[in-house]
């Protein structure tokens, strides 16, 4: 009898922890979406100010932001609808890889040092949030 109680308590605690993990991961995925929206808006402003003159490079930066949004959305769906940690981590990993590509090559398209630094900081915020979400789910 005593042993049964222990097992039930353990199951309850484990379920509680798992549910909390999902919720925290969702909050982080939402925060990553907010930062990515800020990144996308910063690109538009930098373009309007004439700091991203090349059309192809501008398009590539925008497409990267779009890809991050799609992957983040897929991660949210994996967490929310399927409780699929592995699937969510796979999406987050792809988003992080996209961010790393942007940081190493894409940001050179921004022809203003201050603006480039500011946009890099936004990308680091997105990356940090995604890394936290991944760590939580792992």
């Amino acid at each position, binding site marked *: 009898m005593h*042993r049964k109680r*222990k*097992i039930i308590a*353990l*199951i*309850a605690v*484990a*379920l*509680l922890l*798992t*549910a*909390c993990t*999902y*919720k925290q991961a*969702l*909050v982080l*995925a*939402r925060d990553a*979406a*907010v930062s*990515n*929206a800020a990144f*996308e*808006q910063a*690109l*538009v402003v930098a*373009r309007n100010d004439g700091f991203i003159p090349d*059309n*192809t490079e*501008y*398009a590539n930066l*925008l*497409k990267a*932001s*779009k890809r991050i*949004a*799609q992957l*983040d*959305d897929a991660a*949210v*769906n994996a*967490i*929310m609808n*399927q*409780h*699929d940690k592995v699937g969510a981590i796979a999406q987050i990993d792809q988003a992080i890889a996209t961010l790393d590509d942007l940081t190493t090559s894409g940001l050179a398209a921004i022809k203003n040092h201050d603006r480039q630094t500011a946009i890099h900081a936004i990308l680091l915020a997105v990356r940090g949030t995604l890394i936290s979400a991944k760590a939580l789910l792992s």
Partner: protein
Amino acid sequence: MTVAEVLALIKLIEDLAPSGVGLVKSLIDRLTGVPEAQIAAIAHQINAGVIASVNAELAKLPPGA
């Protein structure tokens, strides 16, 4: 219970959790006051906004960019 038994049980619960976690989730929603579905909906809305905005910007560019 031995430590090995506890660890095995935790592993089993982790594997089974996706199907049994719904009840606990609704309990946490009640405790924290922010429904999980609402957080997911906001994230979806923001991501959809980014995608729409990017598509609008891309449409302004000349073909082949």
